[in-house]
């Protein structure tokens, strides 16, 4: 067999097709990433640069002044509030949702209809129940408290968690659980030592989405908070004033607000991509 010299890409048809695809992909990526870049860039600009015309594409003298202001004024506490509320409600919803899903998947709790009823809870537009919930929370003294929003987000995320986790639990081979039962585990131990590890890809994926929902939720947070537990999206909305819009603050706050989600997803990434259930039982 003769050894062929690799040909330059521009001499072949495939080479040109590949180059065109690459160029297309680059253009699309730029279009979609530009707003995000702009947000981040704004966070590091001086006040003059923010409103400069023509626009400043790259901050000439990157400054952390806006961040300093956010910390000085205590605005960043909104990020902390969001971490507490989204974090706790995610953990609670994941725990309750997963055991409920296990029950639905393995013991056929509620027959065929309960699970449909559960997911139907997600079909109510939040705006439709904002007012009744506001009255309820006002009566119960839950307005502007961590507990109030944690309860609400847990309730809102539960149907989603149950629905998703039911599917993941059903994918766990039953024989693995039965084998563990015979080997000496109780049902609870089976759940923790077999089902959780087997379904952990699904657990993390569901948890990430649950967290992101709670993190970004706006309407309830706006209506049900005043000053004590303002969440990050509500705090950002305050920067859109009647007279003035604080673009630098919006940019800086968004950077701070995006970081926790980014960290969570980056942490879960390893778990999300690993195909762990291979080799459990012969397919």
């Amino acid at each position, binding site marked *: 067999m003769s050894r062929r010299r690799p040909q330059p890409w521009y001499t072949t048809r495939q080479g040109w097709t590949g180059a065109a695809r690459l160029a297309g992909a680059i253009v699309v990526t730029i279009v979609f990433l530009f707003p995000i870049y702009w947000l981040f860039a704004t966070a590091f600009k001086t006040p003059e640069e923010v409103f400069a015309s023509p626009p400043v594409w790259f901050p000439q003298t990157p400054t952390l002044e806006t961040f300093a202001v956010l910390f000085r004024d205590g605005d960043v506490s909104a990020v902390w509030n969001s971490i507490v509320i989204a974090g706790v409600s995610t953990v609670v919803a994941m725990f309750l949702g997963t055991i409920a899903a296990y029950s639905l998947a393995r013991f056929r709790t509620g027959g065929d209809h309960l699970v449909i009823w559960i997911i139907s809870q997600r079909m109510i537009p939040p705006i439709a129940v904002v007012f009744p919930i506001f009255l309820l929370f006002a009566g119960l003294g839950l307005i502007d408290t961590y507990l109030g929003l944690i309860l609400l987000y847990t309730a809102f995320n539960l149907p989603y968690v149950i629905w998703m986790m039911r599917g993941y639990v059903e994918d766990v*081979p039953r*024989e*693995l659980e*039965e*084998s*563990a*039962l*015979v*080997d*000496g*585990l*109780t049902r609870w*131990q089976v759940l923790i030592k*077999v089902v959780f*590890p*087997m379904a952990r890809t699904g657990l993390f994926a569901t948890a990430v989405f649950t967290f992101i929902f709670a993190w970004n939720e706006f309407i309830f947070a706006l209506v049900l908070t005043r000053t004590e537990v303002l969440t990050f999206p509500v705090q950002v909305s305050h920067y859109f004033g009647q007279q003035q819009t604080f673009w630098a603050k919006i940019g800086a706050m968004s950077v701070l607000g995006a970081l926790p989600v980014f960290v969570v997803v980056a942490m879960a990434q390893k778990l999300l991509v690993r195909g*762990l*259930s*291979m*080799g*459990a*039982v*012969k397919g």
Partner: protein
Amino acid sequence: MTHLTLDAVHKYYDDFHAVRGVDLAIREGEFAVLVGPSGCGKSTLLRMIAGLEAVDDGEVSIAGRVVNALRPRDRNVAMVFQNYALYPYLSVFENIAFGLRARKVPDAETGRRVREAAETLGITPLLDRLPRQLSGGQRQRVAIGRAIVRDAGVFLFDEPLSNLDAQLRDEMRVEIKRLHQEIGKTTVYVTHDQIEAMTLADRIVLLRDGVIEQEGTPLELFERPATRFVAGFLGSPRMNFVPATLVEDGDTVAARLSADVALRFPADRAAGFRAHLGRELVFGVRPEHLTRPRTGEQGRPGQEALTVTVDLVQPTGTRTYVQFSLAGTEVTAELAAHDVEQPGTRIDLLADMARAILIDPETDRVL
């Protein structure tokens, strides 16, 4: 000593009566094989012994204790599953150690016992691997290791070899048999494969439609089947069944298959059959009991000659199966490798009437 007892055990799935009153007593150290076609209730029975299915009626006792209400973990049984049921996120070592850890056995002892089990099964070099890095046979060894390391009172096998290819299945069968001889634990083994049942069992329990059709040692079932179903289930190729009329023939009786074929039973068997003279029955003969006469041989007493035209020849190497039509029914004979080479040949055969059976078609029972 009886170790495992089933007493009038029933199981219902909605309208389906899966197990219909099974009584069974398995002795300490016995290797019992539950065998039968799919849907006969054999796996359900095994799972009821394990505690994975509720017993709807009747009693299951292990070592003299009724276990109906006990959780699987409290029954002191170990089970090997058809699909291995290995934990993919645990190493082979941890998979085998799983049951010991669940029972809080000290680490040092766990390590010792896991290594011992691995040694017995020849999987010591694999202890650090994950299940997905193992072949099917290796996985099944690990699954068996997980059961033997527990030192449970009863071993349960649910079709453990049906996912393996033929050669590996033969190897593992030998392995399981040897393991049982070494360990000597009471074992209940479920399979649909009659060869596994015959080769492994101290006792075969043949199930059909949720009831025990017949139980006994492999050779008892093979040589003295109680029903047509048992006769047809055990043995490969399966027994031939030909409609026949029972007629008087001199000092004995004969099965008349057609106008010109009547096969006489040995005189000592005639007495048992006389009550059925003149009835339409089913004549059963195993393929290996149809043989070719050696040159010059006239046939021993109890052997009946017949002449047939071969339709089909299937050499297997050691033996050759030939098919032919006998009284309008397709019949198989298992002959020596070179007895017949070509289809269309006309050959003489000897039927071993001492071992042929007659079946009452109304009850399907062997007379």
